[in-house]
């Protein structure tokens, strides 16, 4: 049996009320009043699509053996690198084995569903036994436009495999059209669109039924038996249910007023949300839209009741903080440049040869543990730091990224440059040993307490604009709830 074996999600904790966008820009675009409802998830200053995808992936594979993953498919239209495989960066950050087929899948919003189909194709072909799909997007709408309201940032992940399948893959159906509802040329920052009425009447309302009915016909599915349909569009699509004998409650909510339109990640995020509530036997349909459409059919198995609780949509939605300042949103998202001062301009030059040599330490937070005295140490050492041991070259790799710890000490530094002062950093004593000197993120100074439980989150550490390098590593965050 081939199908889904696990899932996860990642939603940045910052949420921007759409009303605060309207308060800032409504003078220019009063027509946005109608859509200025609810909130959207927005990246912190140290997040991008790649970092969010890695965190979703970490949540998805938490507690599972990563050694069996043979493929990594990363879907996004907002990846940091045009050349330098982003999926390979993610594979490094997740400390997957090197024999992994990794690919970026990009270019249109159905990239999320296309990535899932690619992963399933690879499994069906017997090329691999497990494949991880990550999907993330963090698109920008120009200030004053509707997209600024609609777009939100999020990531989701699904693991496919052949054992312990929680939702069996029943088939797919794809359409490709150059229906250019939205576009963003290479090097451009913001999306552009054609008229919304045309998108609705000539696009969505024609292409979607063709895709869904095509899938149903091809795989002999009676639409009436569908338990959940996840249509990856930022709107309530239940209006189209009548034609297909689908009642409104069968439409998976698109989270438009909590997350926003997270582009290529939306299909995978909605699937993760559907899986959180699915019961054995449920038929789940996922529909990706953009430059055509993809449809995937799944059916939940008994295994779904056995999968240990994991951090997916519900836990991520609950972990939120209101970003009260529209200006902060503009700075964090890179829409607006700020005066960094000379200290902030000083480049943290990265030596890519050092990054390559030390990639497991820097990107995956893999340190060493002494085989003699069992002391975990970070960064990796050759001679054990335990003065009673000092064994030489008796180290084994030891991963910290998937462990929790507690705060040993910290500061909130107003001198160090950061886009979100003060720079909070401290020492973390990891459960099981090891002390890490880490940046903190997604926390306010007032909530920092010695001994508080913390966990790790993958973040963009710096952007070296002069050399075109985004540097990534792990930071500490307050430990969150496991899952519901």
């Amino acid at each position: 049996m081939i199908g889904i074996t696990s899932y996860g999600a990642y939603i940045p904790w910052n949420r921007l009320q759409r009303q605060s966008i309207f308060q800032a820009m409504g003078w220019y675009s009063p027509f946005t009043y109608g859509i200025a409802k609810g909130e959207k998830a927005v990246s912190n200053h140290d997040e991008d699509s790649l970092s969010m995808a890695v965190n979703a992936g970490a949540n998805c594979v938490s507690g599972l053996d990563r050694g069996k993953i043979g493929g990594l498919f990363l879907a996004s239209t907002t990846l940091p690198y045009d050349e330098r495989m982003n999926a390979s960066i993610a594979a490094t950050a997740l400390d997957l084995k090197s024999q992994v087929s990794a690919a970026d899948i990009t270019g249109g919003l159905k990239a999320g569903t296309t990535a899932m189909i690619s992963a399933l194709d690879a499994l069906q072909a017997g090329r691999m036994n497990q494949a991880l799909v990550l999907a993330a997007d963090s698109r920008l709408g120009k200030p004053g436009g509707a997209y600024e309201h609609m777009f939100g940032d999020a990531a989701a992940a699904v693991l496919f495999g052949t054992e312990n399948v929680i939702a069996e893959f029943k088939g797919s159906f794809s359409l490709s059209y150059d229906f250019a509802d939205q576009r963003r040329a290479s090097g451009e920052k913001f999306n552009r669109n054609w008229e919304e009425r045309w998108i609705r009447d000539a696009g969505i309302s024609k292409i979607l039924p063709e895709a869904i009915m095509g899938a149903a016909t091809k795989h002999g599915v009676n639409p009436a038996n569908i338990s959940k349909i996840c249509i990856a569009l930022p709107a309530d699509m239940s209006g189209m249910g009548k034609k297909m004998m689908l009642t409104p409650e069968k439409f998976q909510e698109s989270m438009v007023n909590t997350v926003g339109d997270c582009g290529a990640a939306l299909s995978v995020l909605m699937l993760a949300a559907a899986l959180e509530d699915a019961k054995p036997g449920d038929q789940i349909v996922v529909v990706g839209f953009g430059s055509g459409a993809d449809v995937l059919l799944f059916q939940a198995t008994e295994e779904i009741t056995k999968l240990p609780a994991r951090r997916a949509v519900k836990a991520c939605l609950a972990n939120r903080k209101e970003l009260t300042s529209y200006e902060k949103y503009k700075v964090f998202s890179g829409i607006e440049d700020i005066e960094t001062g000379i200290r902030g301009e000083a480049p943290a030059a990265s030596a890519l040869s050092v990054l390559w040599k030390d990639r497991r330490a820097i990107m995956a937070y893999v340190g060493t543990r002494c085989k003699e005295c069992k002391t975990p140490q970070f960064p990796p050492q050759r001679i054990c730091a335990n003065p009673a041991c000092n064994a030489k070259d008796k180290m084994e790799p030891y991963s910290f990224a998937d462990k929790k710890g507690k705060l040993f000490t910290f500061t909130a530094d107003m001198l160090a440059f950061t886009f979100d002062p003060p720079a909070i950093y401290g020492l973390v004593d990891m459960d099981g040993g090891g002390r890490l000197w880490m940046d903190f993120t997604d926390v306010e100074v007032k909530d920092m307490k010695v001994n508080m439980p913390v966990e790790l989150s993958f973040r963009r550490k710096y952007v070296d604009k002069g050399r075109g390098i985004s540097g990534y590593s792990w930071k500490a965050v307050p430990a969150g709830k496991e899952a519901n």
Partner: protein
Amino acid sequence: MAEGIRDKVAIIGMGCTKFGEQWDKSAEDLMVDSFSEATKDAGISTKDIEMAWMGVCFDEVNVGKSAIPCSLALKLPFIPCTRVENFCASGTESFRGAAYAVASGACDIALAMGVEKLKDTGYGGLPDFGQAMGTRNRMLLPNITAPGAFAMMATRYFEKYGLTRDEGKEALAKISVKSHANGAKNPKAHLRREVTVEQVMRSPIIAEPLGLFDCCGVSDGSACAIVATPEIAKKLKGDDFITVKALQIAATSGEELLYTDWDGTYVKTTREASRRAYAEAGIKNPREEISMLELHDCFSITEMVTFEDLQISPIGKAKEDIDAGFFNLDGKMPSQPDGGLKCFGHPIGASGLRMIYECYLQLLSRAGDRQIKDPKFALTHNLGGFPAMSVCSVGIFGRK
């Protein structure tokens, strides 16, 4: 076990510029200034110097690498000259080179120069550590600043000894108030204004919980020492010289960060270096035998824990000694009689030598307004790096 260098090296002359924002002077100018004072004091000329060391840390981007800037500025005549660097302990490191050369018999008279010109970066505070911690660390470590790294020790200290933020900050404030009072008396000091506990506690936060007045000045300056054998010292200066009683340095093995026994409320290298220094100097009871302290008070919290690490105050009880005025200029053991890093300022490569300069003045009864009565042993403590990852020099000086 080697016997050490106790009384084998004499200081026969010292110089120190005014520390501060020396916009109109280069590092070379500052070296010439301190060197002129020292040679005059020693009563020797440049050609009498046989070997030289130059301590400089961040300033290499300004003055350049190697010891050539020193030999060239001072027109040292093709003698051995070496640059040393050990973060903020660079000044004492320079002194150690010169002292060991004399103690070993490699030469009779040597120069220890320290200099730093920090005020050409274009911004306040020390230069960015991202450039100073190695290529891998800059990709791994937070964007650390010195106040942040030391503030983490204050957080831990307050936590361990049950001090509220206000109680802790008040104890630290008293340390700064004392140093400002001393600095105000010192014409060569960078910051010469007295402050109150309220002012210190209200100063803007630099790195929680440390405020502006918990941080030392970032300065330009130079200090140097001319060392010689005691026989030459006697010939040149009669009794007007001091000797090195102990000179010890300890660099971390990484235990504090890599092996989790360290509780974050002390500096392990200070404990190690001072333990060895007391042994070398023959000091059994530091609290009773030491007359004065020149500590590396880069931040108030550093001075506080150093009182304990040097076995002057009982562990966790420095606050009681601070409250009792034990370390004030008129107290039992004056600390930072010249104002310390806090007020004299902190041109990194020069600081260790500036500390020795004050010990030298005090021991030879040349300290004017801030003269301590009858000092016997004077101690310097020069700390480089961060509490979690440090290198520390401890020197003890006295009359022969």
